[in-house]
Structure formats: structure tokens, C-alpha cells
């Protein structure tokens, strides 16, 4: 049995605006999402802002009722057996809110240990282990208001794990964390995976998803548009190679010409520090580098690299097609 089964989940929101003449607007945030998560798997849910990731998660963690469709976790229905579901899942979202600022880290954890009914005699050891896991040992007596974002995020993860949940939901855990903190966070998630925890992760960082996820689903405007291992996604979408050319001005005007070159599937411009990088996806087996460069004739070029497609290439193609 899969640990999580979501079947045709849908959720719409009605929002009203205007004081006197009320306008009602109906948004379909999630439009029929079906997927399974297997035990021990890290499952990535990727998609652009507003795609419906958080809404999907809220339905799974029992904070929102689905408009239609169903989902179960370890056989418990997220609507009918909400309390049983809550006992078995942990939930962590990104950002620095959601903690009791005036309490110490330890008291924050103790409070949630009570709410998750962690037996009194196990609490101390459990909290100690988790503080160790997330690297906050020695800081637990301090008030959370003095914590950095990274520390808060790690405290959140410890909170999500207090009751040793079977399934952990991490909604953009790396939001606003510096590169070193993000790397440590990835290590923490990787070590949870080695311990056999099942995790549903959302992130906007593709390398993070590539590194951590066993399987990924891409959601766009409330619908799943692809699902598979990171390797499968890379293959399925861009069955070819990618050419990256750093340019210094004027590349936007040449896009038409580049796209006209045979075997060029797509071309996008990525603005980086000093250069604008032209990213060109090519059909597999084709070598049209010379033709592409010819199309750019006359504008200053920097580094030219041919590489294998990354998950980000696959993602960009999936959500923009």
C-alpha cells in the first residue's frame, strides 16, 4: 500500500471584493490532482508560484477540505479520519513565522510535544535528539526572537519531527536561507531520507529537487503535467542537449534568428551578473553550434558550453509550454 494516495483532488476558492456591491470570484487552485507516494520516498512537488502546491498540501494535512476528490494517508481518509492522519504526519513550511517568539526553542518544542501527545518521559530524550539533528544543541534555552532565519527553519523541522511522523510535509523549507544554511538543510533532509522517512517536498530550487527527490511531480495551474524520477523528467522533456552561450548585449533581438536554425527546440535568455546567457535546447544528435553562432554574428560573445540538460531545463520547458 502506498503511504499516500491522492485521487482527483480539487479545490476552489471563492473570494469576494467590494464593500457594497460584492463581487464573487471563483479560483480553481487545484484541478484534479492524482498521485501516490511510496514509503521511504522523497517526493518532490514542483511548480511555479500559484500553481497549487501549498493548496494541495493543505488538503493533505487536513487544514483544507477538498472541493472534490479524496486522499488517504496510511489508509486514513484526510477528511473523515483527520485526527488519525494528524497523528501520523508532520508539517513544516518555509519562512520565519510560526513560532512563539517569546518562548525559548525548548519551550516551543515542549509545547508541540504536548500537542502531539509525546509521552512525558520520552519528551526530554526526543527533544535532545532532534536539537542535535538540526544543529541547535546548546541554543535551546534562548528565545526564538533572537534566532536567525536558518535557525528558525531548523527549529521548525525539529518541531515537525517531534512525534516521529510517518510522513513529513516540507513546503519550501529552504525559503530565504543562505547557501550554507541551505546546504545544511539539504544534508538534514538527506539524513532523514537515509533513516527511511517519507517526505513530500516543495521547492523552487531545481538542483535541490534533483539532489533530494526520488520522484517528482510538476504541477502547473492546478494540474499535474509530468511525473517521474529526475532522470526520467530530464529525458522525457529535452531528449537532446543544451547549448549555453554568454553574450554581452543585444541577444534579445536575435532570438528569432536562433529559433529559425533547424534542430533548435527552444531558446531562452537568462540574465546573470554581467552577461545574458542564451540557453538553447537542441534535438538529440544534432550539432548545430556553428549555425547558432552564425545567427549571433556581430554581438559580443563569451563562454560557449554544450552540456546535458538539467532538471531546471526540463522544468522550464514543462511549465512554460
Amino acid at each position, binding site marked *: 500500500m502506498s503511504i499516500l494516495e491522492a485521487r482527483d483532488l480539487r479545490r476552489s476558492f471563492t473570494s469576494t471584493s467590494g464593500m457594497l456591491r460584492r463581487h464573487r470570484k471563483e479560483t480553481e487552485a487545484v484541478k484534479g490532482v492524482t498521485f501516490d507516494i511510496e514509503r521511504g520516498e522523497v517526493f518532490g512537488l514542483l511548480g511555479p508560484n500559484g500553481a497549487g502546491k501549498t493548496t494541495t498540501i493543505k488538503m493533505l494535512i487536513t*487544514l483544507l477540505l477538498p472541493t472534490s476528490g479524496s486522499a488517504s494517508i496510511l489508509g486514513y481518509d484526510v477528511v473523515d479520519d483527520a485526527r488519525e492522519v*494528524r497523528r501520523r504526519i508532520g508539517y513544516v513550511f518555509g519562512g520565519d513565522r*510560526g*513560532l512563539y517568539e*517569546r*518562548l525559548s526553542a525548548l519551550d516551543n518544542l515542549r509545547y508541540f510535544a504536548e*500537542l502531539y*501527545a509525546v509521552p512525558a518521559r520520552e519528551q526530554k530524550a526526543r527533544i535532545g535528539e532532534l536539537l542535535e539533528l538540526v544543529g541547535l544543541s546548546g541554543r535551546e534555552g534562548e528565545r526564538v526572537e533572537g534566532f536567525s532565519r536558518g535557525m528558525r527553519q531548523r527549529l521548525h523541522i525539529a518541531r515537525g519531527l517531534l512525534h516521529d511522523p510517518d510522513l513529513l510535509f516540507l513546503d519550501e523549507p529552504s525559503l530565504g536561507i543562505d547557501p550554507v544554511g541551505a546546504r545544511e538543510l539539504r544534508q538534514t533532509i538527506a539524513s532523514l531520507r537515509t533513516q527511511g522517512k517519507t517526505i513530500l517536498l516543495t521547492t523552487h530550487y531545481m538542483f535541490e529537487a534533483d539532489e533530494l527527490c526520488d520522484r517528482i511531480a510538476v504541477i502547473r495551474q492546478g494540474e499535474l503535467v509530468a511525473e517521474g524520477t529526475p532522470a526520467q523528467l530530464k529525458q522525457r522533456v529535452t531528449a537532446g542537449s543544451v547549448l549555453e552561450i554568454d553574450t554581452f548585449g543585444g541577444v534579445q533581438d536575435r532570438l528569432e534568428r536562433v529559433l529559425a536554425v533547424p534542430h533548435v527546440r527552444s531558446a531562452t535568455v537568462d540574465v546573470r551578473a554581467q552577461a545574458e546567457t542564451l540557453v538553447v535546447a537542441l534535438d538529440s544528435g544534432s550539432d548545430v553550434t556553428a549555425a547558432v553562432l552564425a545567427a549571433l554574428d556581430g554581438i559580443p560573445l563569451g563562454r560557449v558550453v554544450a552540456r546535458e540538460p538539467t532538471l531546471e531545463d526540463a522544468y522550464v520547458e514543462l511549465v512554460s509550454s
Partner: protein
Amino acid sequence: MSARFIAAMRVLFVGGIISFRGLFNWLNPYIYVPTMLVAPIFQVLLFAYIGRSAAVANDAFYLVGNAVQYASIPCLFAMANTIAGERWTQTLGIVLATPANRVALFVGRSLPVIVNGGFVALFTLAVGARVLGVTIPAGAWPGVLCAIAVASASCTGLGLLQAALALRVRSTAVLSNIVFGVLLVFCGANVALDAMPAWMASVGRVLPLTHAIQACREIVAGSAVGDVLGLLGREAAVGGVYAVLGLVALRFVEDQSRRRATLELQ
């Protein structure tokens, strides 16, 4: 005892105390002393002197009425904040995603509020008696304590109902201020129920504090606790009804938020 029962009891007591501290540490001495310990003395003095100049009732009448009525400041404001304050800390979603028993969760938060409310009333009564020169016989204090405890608990019941409303309307202070004013006028703190128009007296009888104030006055005047058990029982019943309404309302708000996303939970 089942594990589930023990867990609920721990949420009630241990959880209640931790979360009260979490949402109320701002009550540092610089805020606490003026609002909770000094302001009520002003209120007592104001009404006692109005009473003296109008020669309607003695000092003890106003002292007891206002000291007990002032418990509604901590009971209403603190109760609403310990629940509705979760919207500002954005912890509500995380709390509601836990399997914790909701009755224990919310009622637990009321326990420290009740203790604090009782302390404020008792302090005001003791200091006010000194200032006005009202003698409260030593033997009356246990009964006074008892009446104040019931008053504080029953007013916190109303606070619980108000907390549910505050969650929806996103403001706790507006509502608490209004309810405080209603209590000040209707619960007989300064005008005896007999002296009010009938409709006002009937409103007073379904509000918390009214019966406890009356009981407390009788105790201070020499009655035994046994003689005012009826009043205290009615006080407790009124508070109990509000508390149950509050729990039902909180349940309703939680249901609505799952259905219609009304609490923008994280």
C-alpha cells in the same frame, strides 16, 4: 487512565501554561503594574467618590463592585489574545494541524487567565479597602477568595466566546473594550440591579460577574459562604454556558476555515 486522557490533561495544564507564557510574556512589569494593578484603583476611587457625593451607597458597595468587575480586563483581553493572538504569530495553522484535543487546548489556555484575573480582583480589593478605609473582616477573606475565583472563571467563559469572534473579525481589543463597558454598566458594579430598569436588570442576570459581585458584597457584610452558594452557583452556570458557547463557536470557526479558508492558515 487511558493514554488519550492523560495526553488531554497534559494539553490542558502543561500546554495551557506554556502557551500563556508564549503569548503573554509582553506583560512585563512596566505594562502589567499600570494596567492591572494601578488602573483598577482609579476605577474604585472614581465610583466610590461619586457614590459619596451622591450619598447613594457606602464605600464597600463600590469597592467590591469595581474590584470584581475589573477582573474582566484580564479575563476578556487575555483570553481573547491567547487564542486570537495565534493569527499574528501565524501559529494557528500549525496548532490546528496537530491532533490535540481542542477542548483541552482552548480550556487549558483559560486556566492561567483565570488565576491572573482572580489575582487582579483580589489585589484591587485589598488595596482599595486600605485606601478607602473599608474594613473587611479577616474571616471574610476565604469567602471573598471563593467568590472572586468563581467570578474570574465565569468571566473567562465569556472571554472564550469572545476569542472565537476575535479570530474571525481579526481584532481582539475592539470587542473586549465593548464587552468591558457592557459589564461595567449591567453587572451591578455601581448601580444595584434593583435600581435599574427591568430590562437592564434582566440583561445583568445573564452576564457573568453580576451574581458573584452580589455574593461578594454579602460576604464582606458578614454572610457565610454557605448563605451565598445559590448566587455562586448561578454565577458558575452563566459562565459555563458562555464557555460552552465559546467552545462550540471555536469548533465552528475551525470547520469554516477548513471549508472556506477563512483563517488564512499557513
